């Protein structure tokens, strides 16, 4: 059952070989079943978004009899989902840019310099990362109202820094640590300033890490629901998760358009995942990223 030794079993006596084949067959059977369970909801989401209402409600089936894009049309034309996607894109890009920039400064400082409160700062950042939004949403809503930033994308961008900044600082520290100090010192001898060393040497050499951190920050902002629910009150400022949330709080559940919205809001991230998988999985295990 434990790996690595499998190849060696090839040379084992016939009885052991039979057992090896049985074990291998069982492995594939269990993994295929697991993959089927993983894919089932994704498949259901996709086909529901392509079904006619009568097929969803009256004669439900495992695959659509007639494929229709009507749900997508309703979502984009009647429900104004384009606006929600646009708002989500603005917020997510802004949060990513701001927090990756600010946190790369902070991470660099904590990795390269030795100073008195460095350990404390590191701990504060980890605390902040682990402090759940459910504890902060009430005071943050009071704070944003006081700052006149309630019900605005600017306010949303600001509060999303509560989880994106600690996360990206924490992850970037790990990536920066792997850049040899000698390269920077050499660069500085060649005339670079400290800033120059950071942006011309450390940042380019950590590019895969920065890409992974950017993706995590982006998806974190893209997926956020609770703070958006609390802060945004007008329809024109809704993000994608918020728009879909309001679809299910109406009396009749418009499943077709709802699943069309689910497909549209997850497709870009799933594609991104398959492209950048290697870096993302590395970052996830190194820095414990919930996703």
């Amino acid at each position, binding site marked *: 059952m*434990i790996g*690595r030794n499998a190849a060696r079993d090839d040379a084992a006596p016939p009885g052991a070989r039979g057992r090896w084949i049985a074990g291998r067959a069982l492995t594939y059977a*269990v*993994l295929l079943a*697991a*993959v089927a*369970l*993983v894919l089932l*909801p994704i498949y*259901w*989401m996709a086909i529901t978004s392509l079904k006619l209402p009568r097929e969803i*409600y009256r004669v*439900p089936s*495992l695959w659509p009899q007639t494929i229709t894009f009507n749900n997508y049309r309703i979502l984009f034309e009647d429900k104004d989902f384009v606006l929600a996607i646009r708002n989500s894109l603005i917020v997510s890009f802004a949060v990513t840019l701001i927090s990756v920039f*600010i*946190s790369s*400064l*902070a991470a*660099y*400082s904590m990795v390269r*310099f030795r100073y008195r409160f460095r350990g404390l*700062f590191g701990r*504060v*950042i*980890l*605390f902040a990362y682990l*402090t*759940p939004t*459910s*504890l*902060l949403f009430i*005071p943050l809503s*009071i*704070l944003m109202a006081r700052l006149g930033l309630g019900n605005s994308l600017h306010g949303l961008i600001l509060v999303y*820094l509560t989880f994106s*900044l600690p996360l990206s600082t924490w992850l970037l520290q790990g990536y920066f640590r792997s850049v040899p100090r000698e*390269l920077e*010192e*050499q660069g500085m*001898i*060649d005339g670079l300033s400290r800033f120059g060393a950071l942006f011309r*040497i450390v940042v380019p*050499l950590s590019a895969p890490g920065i890409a992974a951190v950017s993706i995590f920050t982006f998806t974190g902002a893209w*997926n956020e*629901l*609770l703070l958006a629910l*609390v802060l945004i009150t007008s329809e024109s400022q809704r993000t994608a*998760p918020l728009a879909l*949330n309001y679809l*299910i709080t109406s009396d009749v*559940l418009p*499943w077709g358009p709802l699943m069309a919205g*689910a497909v549209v*809001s997850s497709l870009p*991230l*799933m594609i991104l*995942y398959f492209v950048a998988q290697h870096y993302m999985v590395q970052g996830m295990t190194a820095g*414990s990223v*919930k*996703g």
Partner: protein
Amino acid sequence: MSQAPTPLTSRPAGLAAARQAAGRRRWSAATQDRVFAYALVAPALLLILGLVAYPFFYAIYVSFTNRVVGNDGEWIGLGNFRYLAQSAAFSSAIWNTVILVVASDALKLSIGLGLALLVNQRFPARGLFRSFLMLPWAMPAFVAYLTWRVLYQPIGGGLNLILTGTGIYSGIIDWLGQRATAMPAVIAASVWRGFPFWFVSILAALQTIPAELYEAARIDGATAWQRFRHVTFPAIRPVLIVVTLLSSIWTANSFESVWLLTQGGPSDATMIFPVLAYYGMQTQRLGEAAAVSVAMLPVLAILVLVATALMQKDDEA
């Protein structure tokens, strides 16, 4: 990597010259470095203090007041907590949160560990299996829970359709609408979405175990269970502890799962802390709502402190 600058001068001499040049300015090189270091952390630190630390303590303060929307209220001591202690919804929230966390963690551990052990073997297409098993993690949480909600629908939901189609059960089950099945349904969805994090973390730890250890155990005649108990388990234990802590923190605070599936219903059967706090806020009683989230703080604080200590130790090692 390839674009690394090649040395032009011998390093020690050049560095000394640079330091000397710096020393002739107003501050010594060491002071300059220190000022620069603090200046770089300052923006991140100020934002975190303003957006996390201040609201954190402010939440605690508000929980001791009878603040409502539009009126700052006054200090009422433990009033909110006394009120919560007598509220049925609050005691439901305590139990449901505990059940959700313990059941999800246990299931994610078993599934994540089992699959990680399987994928850790050498066989064709293992990379492909790993990619597919990770998919729920790449899916936005709100999309995952909305999709599960549709799957759970009594009429036309995929789950009932499969049960009737395969002849396992022919009745119609309203998974999210009845007390007996609502919580298991929430747990199942949360496990679906959360197990990949366990799976990949455990798999990464398994891959650091040198094959020689298994070799040696095998030569000593260890059984598969003994090999797991004495080689595999000690190697993955640190990861299991950190993952359990993080997963507990995240599950106890996962607003989306319960909100998008059941909104806490039916009749509080799936009510958990974050959802209850959100309801409190919707009724505009901010003091009470804050008290709900602050009430779980003692347990949460222990989890966070231990997790932080372990993660920081890991990080510096």
